[in-house]
């Protein structure tokens, strides 16, 4: 038995000043969900899939989106986005879930995927460390990222500047101190660890150097919004890495 970990980052809280990011709560859930539905990740018979979900942002987002006040309709940018959030929360409730996290757990259970909720980046490393030697086939990531690392959650400052708390990041520079976990990875694996996030190229390269496994990442921006747009590329994982953004070609790179 080998283990395939899919680390799922979370959305920011909704901010009316930011039209670019996380208007939908499920941006980083839908691609792995569709991948499970269609086996787009070519799961090997001996692979067990784990969704490792960063829970905090989903809890904050649910707290905001599930209780929609009348006052929110009076936002300066109008009510249209308000209705999107409200509809998304109601859609989740119609499935019988009582929160975004509960919905994720239900989807994971439906696919026979192990759900593992984490609260800190250290929880992620501790989870990997809890598995036997040579048992990890690959690690995938869906979420925000920068050239410095994976941003498991996003936040906004008073100027609507977008960034992450340092405690919400897995930094590329933090990989070498975890090099002792290299023996957890299957040294013969041919399946790449993939990092679906903007500018993950450097992180993928460092992961490859530290853990001695094949990796892939984006040199430039990628856009998860392409999942909901018409395309002649039916596989959304392929669509994400091939569709140019306003900043050019994603430059998907393999190591």
């Amino acid at each position, binding site marked *: 038995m080998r283990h395939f970990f899919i680390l799922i980052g979370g959305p920011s809280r909704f901010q009316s000043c930011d039209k670019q990011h996380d208007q939908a709560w499920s941006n980083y859930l839908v691609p792995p969900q569709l991948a499970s539905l269609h086996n787009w990740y070519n799961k090997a018979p001996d692979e067990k899939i784990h969704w490792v979900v960063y829970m905090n942002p989903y809890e904050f987002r649910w707290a905001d989106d599930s209780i929609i006040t009348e006052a929110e309709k009076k936002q300066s940018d109008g009510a249209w986005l308000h209705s999107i959030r409200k509809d998304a929360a109601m859609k989740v409730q119609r499935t019988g879930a009582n929160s975004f996290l509960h919905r994720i757990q239900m989807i994971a259970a439906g696919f026979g995927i192990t759900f593992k909720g984490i609260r800190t980046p*250290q929880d992620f490393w501790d989870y990997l460390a809890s598995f036997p030697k040579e048992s990890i086939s690959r690690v995938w990531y869906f979420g925000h990222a920068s*050239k410095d690392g994976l941003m498991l959650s996003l*936040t906004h400052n008073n100027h609507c500047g977008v*960034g992450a708390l*340092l405690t919400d*990041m897995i930094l590329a520079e933090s990989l070498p*101190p*975890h090099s002792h976990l290299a023996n957890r990875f299957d040294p013969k694996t041919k399946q790449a660890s993939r990092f679906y996030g903007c500018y993950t190229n450097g992180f993928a390269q460092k992961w490859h150097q530290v853990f001695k496994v094949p990796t892939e990442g984006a040199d430039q921006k990628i856009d998860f919004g392409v999942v909901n747009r018409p395309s002649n590329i039916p596989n959304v994982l392929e669509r994400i890495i091939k569709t140019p953004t*306003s900043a*050019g070609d994603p430059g998907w790179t393999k190591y």
Partner: protein
Amino acid sequence: MKNLICIFILLAFSLVSACSAENNRNGNLEPALQNAFRAIYYSTYGLDYPGDEEGIAHCIAYKDEECLKIFNRVMDAKQFIVAQIQADPERVLNITLDTIFTYAEFMPDPKAKQSDPDEELHDVSTDIGAIMALYFFNRDEQDQVILNRMIKAPLKILEYLFYHPHAWMHNRPHPERWVTFVETLPENSFSIHDKKFLIDTLRTTDYKKFGIMLDRPPQK
């Protein structure tokens, strides 16, 4: 006589104005610097901040608004900090160190569940931004002042100081004095792997420019 009185009144007014301007400048320096610290925090933790020189070139070539916006904000803040250091290095270093120590009290425990991230951001970005600003203090006497404060610092401050090896570690005039300090850090907080990595980082001189090391005029 009338003229003399007028001159006297004008002189007195100028003196009072100059004094209040000076007071105002001193009074405003700390919050202004802390604003700048919050801005340079985004040189590492900003979503679209370009990671290297090629990244900036790409931003400019594609007129990437998000990237240029955050880059310009960081560069404006960097220019402000550097100008203040040139004017009064000792005072600015003291404000920077005091900020690191003061705001560390409000920093979240990186191993515990966080409270509201939007509320934490103000304190985190002020503290970490001030740590990042240590990069600008690379003269021997400044380095010694920083080290002396850190030797007596509570563990929580040291954990954040070394949490992410920021650019400041690559810009020490005498890395070996920091290596000696790192070797004494408590092993229950800094593992052998952590210490080795920190020491390697302090001794590394061959690196690509990143974060606040990047330097171009704001692209406006």
